[in-house]
């Protein structure tokens, strides 16, 4: 693995390896000294062309727990907003000696461009690109699901996938990089996915995706999902006629208190509610649901650090060959 650009090109073995390493990284977060020397002397650049404090601090915490030096490059208010190109920015980072670039960009495919060109040699981690993908979010969601279900079944999570798990992803699928990354990764790990959305917020070709489409959230909940992943909906979508107004959206596709109660009524004791944040309380998710014992929102945040540590460790240590387990000692 040279870069992490998308979950579509992530193999099952690589995905499980990241999740397994993240388990060990999560253990570090519970120690007194929450730091490992693994990336001492390496420089990780957080290159953010789009504001995202949560993702940035998560990557920053991950890099710092591995003892890497972190440079935060927010493109807003910098030379980039004065017209400097991605190419020039990348070449500057190369000259500075960046060992890895974590990039968040409003344009789909920008991380893939960085990885494909000779502008910079460093490994590239996609921290969310436009409406394309957000692979570390999907990995932390998978990590959260795997841990929860291992605990619920009383088994270990190391080395396991998500075979048989049923996940409903609900909301603005069309514009969601989280939905895309989750779809590919969940499928790779053996889970079944149902996309729940108004038809206007699904790609016209979503029928070709390896998932079930359902326009009716209540119906999807009655089918007994093991996890419900709510996506952020931007209220301005209603101005482009994707839906009539926030009230109607919330009524049909919001996870409200009644739907929270419905999970109990369906006997789904272990079903989790996930949300990548930031949440629009009262629009796609009610406070009752967000703060319920089913909500994994805060677990997702802390797991995000562990998963990003695993990704940075994998991309920054070693030559990029596959390792046999037995070479360790």
């Amino acid at each position, binding site marked *: 693995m040279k870069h992490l650009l998308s979950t579509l090109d992530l193999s099952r073995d690589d995905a499980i390896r990241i999740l397994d390493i993240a388990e*060990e990284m999560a253990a570090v977060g519970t120690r007194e000294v929450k730091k490992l020397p*693994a990336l001492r002397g390496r420089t990780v650049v957080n290159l953010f062309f789009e504001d995202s404090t949560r993702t940035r601090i998560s990557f920053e915490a991950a890099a710092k727990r591995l003892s890497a030096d972190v440079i935060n490059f927010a493109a807003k208010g910098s030379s980039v907003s004065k017209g400097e190109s991605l190419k020039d920015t990348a070449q500057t980072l190369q000259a500075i000696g960046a060992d890895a670039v974590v990039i968040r960009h409003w344009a789909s495919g920008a991380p893939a461009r960085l990885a494909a060109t000779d502008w910079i040699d460093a490994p590239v981690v996609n921290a969310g690109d436009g409406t394309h993908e957000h692979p570390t979010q999907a990995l932390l969601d998978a990590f959260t699901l795997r841990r929860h279900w291992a605990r619920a079944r009383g088994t270990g999570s190391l080395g396991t996938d998500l075979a048989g798990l049923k996940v409903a992803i609900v909301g603005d699928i069309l514009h969601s990089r989280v939905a895309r990354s989750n779809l590919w990764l969940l499928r790779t790990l053996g889970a079944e996915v149902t996309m729940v959305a108004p038809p206007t917020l699904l790609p016209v070709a979503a029928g070709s995706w390896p998932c079930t489409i359902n326009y009716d959230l209540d119906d999807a909940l009655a089918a007994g999902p093991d996890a419900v992943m709510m996506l952020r909906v931007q209220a301005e979508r209603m101005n482009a006629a994707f839906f009539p107004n926030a009230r109607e959206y919330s009524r049909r596709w919001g996870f409200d208190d009644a739907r929270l109660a419905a999970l109990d009524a369906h006997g789904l004791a272990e079903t989790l509610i996930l949300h990548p944040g930031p949440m629009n309380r009262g629009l796609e998710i009610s406070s009752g649901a967000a703060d319920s014992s089913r909500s994994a929102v805060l677990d997702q945040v802390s797991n995000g650090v562990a998963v990003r540590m695993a990704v940075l460790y994998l991309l920054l240590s070693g030559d990029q060959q596959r390792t046999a387990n037995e070479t360790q000692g």
Partner: protein
Amino acid sequence: MDTGNAMQRTSGSQPKSARTVLSGDDIDRALTRIAHEIIEANKGVQDLVLLGIPRRGFPLAQRIAQRIASAEPGTDPAAIVGQLDITMYRDDLRHSTARTPSPTNLPAGGIDGKVVVLVDDVLYSGRTIRAALDAIADLGRPRIVRLAVLVDRGHRELPIRADHVGKNLPTATSEKVRVRLGEVDTANGLPLNEVAIEGQA
């Protein structure tokens, strides 16, 4: 385990010039002796913690703990054994292949103020033990740290020595020392216990 011979304990097809230097019985005797040395050095089992370094240091630590428990009745072997992963503390992370770390598990009492005996299978350059000492420092502050190894093959690159050695094995750097323990190594479905030296394949 040491750099430069990362594959030395890999089980698999045997190269032509392999010779067994310790049998399973030899290993048992060496571990029994080490167990008694540890009790003697520590004047009992008070505050004793054995930390095995993955992968084969951990089963060795378990075996030593069993022997200590049978010599000192009332000792729970599981309560004095832990595993210490040193992957993140290696000094060759940038150059060798990325390794998947193993869990670090400490006994319930932790290691603060304890007598920690690090257990590994082969002592070679000393770099693994250097990493282990760093890892321990991030986990707590033992009163004493000692080192027990099944085999010392020489060729040290750091000022590190073992307190308890099962067998000193003079080797050439071109040779590989393979330790096989039934807990992790099998042949034809049967557990395998031996130490072998392999010449250059």
